[in-house]
């Protein structure tokens, strides 16, 4: 192969051409990864903020770390069947795996009456797609989007001197996020029930039900206990008293909740979970949840999954509420981190549950 000798300047230019293509792509790749966007809320950033806020890690969920597995079934009332084609609103005795937890990063934190409680459920109709949902007991979520979530986690950073979040930072978060004030106040003055069994749990985020004919309805849902509701007496029992009480309650009799759908009115804000909906919205009792069995997270069926709110069956779609995507992404990252770690025993051990079983028999 013969070529005319090339002038050095031309050759340098050609080498520049060889380098330019890959370099431009590499820079674009770094941009996609967020290297040039320090303000972007990334999954790693949220995990880092949770860690700094005292999340324990070591194989546990990064948030809602202290929990217990439950199981039972769901019976549809049929009253929501015209709103959604999802099997769960049509069928009887749909198997359910669930998890009750406290919204703390520390799996060995002593139980406290004022800690946010959660109920997470996985509905598994035998011949249809599953549905997962995670609900909390405050009526609204005082966070509007990814930025609020990141700012809030950052404000909860543990002060090494006190071992607690600094009150100044918490106050500063409130002052710099005035749009969350009414939600925070609503939650601060919420009714607090005596335990898990008589608690009401809210979907917080909004979703869209899709009927067989394609009609869409924006909803939020609530699990309302059928057990008599007692107010929390403000006294804190022993280290795990909320979980002990739950174990005792579920051994006494199956616990039941009504799944109540709240249909959005024209004035209700769909894409902001910090906004409460009108109290006179139409509601529909979609069916009854029955939980009759409880197991420790150690080896329990709720440990090796996430309650990702975007695992939805045909008939339920996500709304444009940005928090849904934050939760989905963060749960997945937390799940991949914790699943690779060596896990220590849960605070609610199989032995603790065993003692109630032997009492019963």
């Amino acid at each position: 192969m013969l070529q005319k000798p090339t002038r050095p300047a031309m050759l340098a230019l050609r080498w520049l051409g060889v380098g330019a293509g890959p370099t431009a792509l590499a820079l674009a790749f770094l941009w996609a990864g967020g290297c040039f966007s320090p303000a972007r809320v990334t999954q790693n950033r949220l995990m880092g903020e949770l860690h700094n806020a005292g999340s324990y890690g070591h194989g546990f969920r990064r948030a809602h770390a202290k929990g217990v597995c439950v199981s039972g079934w769901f019976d549809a009332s049929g009253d929501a069947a015209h709103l959604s084609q999802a099997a769960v609103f049509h069928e009887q005795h749909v198997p359910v795996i669930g998890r009750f937890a406290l919204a703390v990063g520390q799996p060995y934190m002593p139980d406290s009456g004022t800690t946010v409680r959660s109920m997470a459920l996985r509905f598994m109709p035998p011949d249809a797609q599953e549905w997962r949902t995670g609900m909390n007991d405050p009526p609204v979520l005082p966070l509007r989007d990814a930025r609020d979530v990141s700012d809030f986690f950052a404000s909860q950073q543990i002060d090494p001197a006190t071992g607690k979040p600094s009150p100044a930072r918490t106050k500063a978060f409130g002052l710099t996020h005035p749009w969350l004030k009414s939600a925070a106040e609503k939650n601060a003055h919420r009714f607090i029930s005596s335990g898990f069994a008589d608690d009401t749990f809210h979907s917080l985020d909004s979703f869209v039900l899709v009927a067989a004919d394609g009609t869409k309805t924006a909803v939020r849902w609530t699990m309302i206990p059928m057990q008599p509701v007692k107010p929390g007496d403000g006294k804190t029992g022993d280290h795990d008293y909320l979980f002990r009480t739950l174990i005792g309650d579920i051994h006494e009799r199956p616990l039941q909740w009504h799944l109540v759908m709240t249909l959005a009115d024209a004035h209700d804000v769909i894409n902001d979970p910090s906004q409460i909906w009108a109290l006179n919205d139409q509601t529909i009792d979609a069916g009854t949840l029955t939980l009759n069995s409880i197991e420790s997270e150690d080896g329990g069926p709720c440990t090796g999954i996430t309650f990702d709110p975007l695992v939805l069956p045909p008939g339920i779609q996500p709304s444009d509420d940005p928090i849904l995507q934050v939760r989905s992404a963060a749960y997945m990252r937390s799940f991949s981190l914790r699943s690779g770690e060596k896990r220590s025993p849960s605070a609610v051990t199989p032995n603790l549950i065993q003692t109630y079983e032997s009492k019963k028999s």
Partner: protein
Amino acid sequence: MTRMASFPLLSRVLHWFMAVMILAMLFIGLFMASSVGPNYHRLVTLHRPLGIAILVLAILRLGNRLRSSIPPIPNDLPRLLRRAATASHILLYGLMIALPLVGWGMLSAGGFPIPLWGQSVLLPPILPHNPVLWSWLRFAHSILAFVLFGLVLAHIGAALFHGLIRRDGVLRTMV
């Protein structure tokens, strides 16, 4: 200079079609894994069918490659570079097939339903539910994606090296 034989038309079409898909896939994957919204869900929803499409096309392409005669690597290329060319092409094929399989496998091991199209068309799990396996495969999926991206950069650099520096007709066989 005698013009080298080009790759067959089907090979060239597959190459450029997949080049666009794979680059898009790498950028979508990295962007969604380092984001929590507002396009997170849309990108995850796109990532799965695109990955499966790449898997299917990569297998077809491998069959096509093994059946068709392809232009030889120039004889005057230093031995080390020739070996690098062969090895990088084998690795590219390997990763085009392995990455979608690892992605599919990791979601299976994580116990996730795997929607392929809309909410009703689901992929079956290809591995048992095993969170430790899920964690490992999730990690491997990232590492392999970075390796594939590095190989793509080297591939583009090598193509430009053939086209601009050596001017040996290799670049022209694929355009």
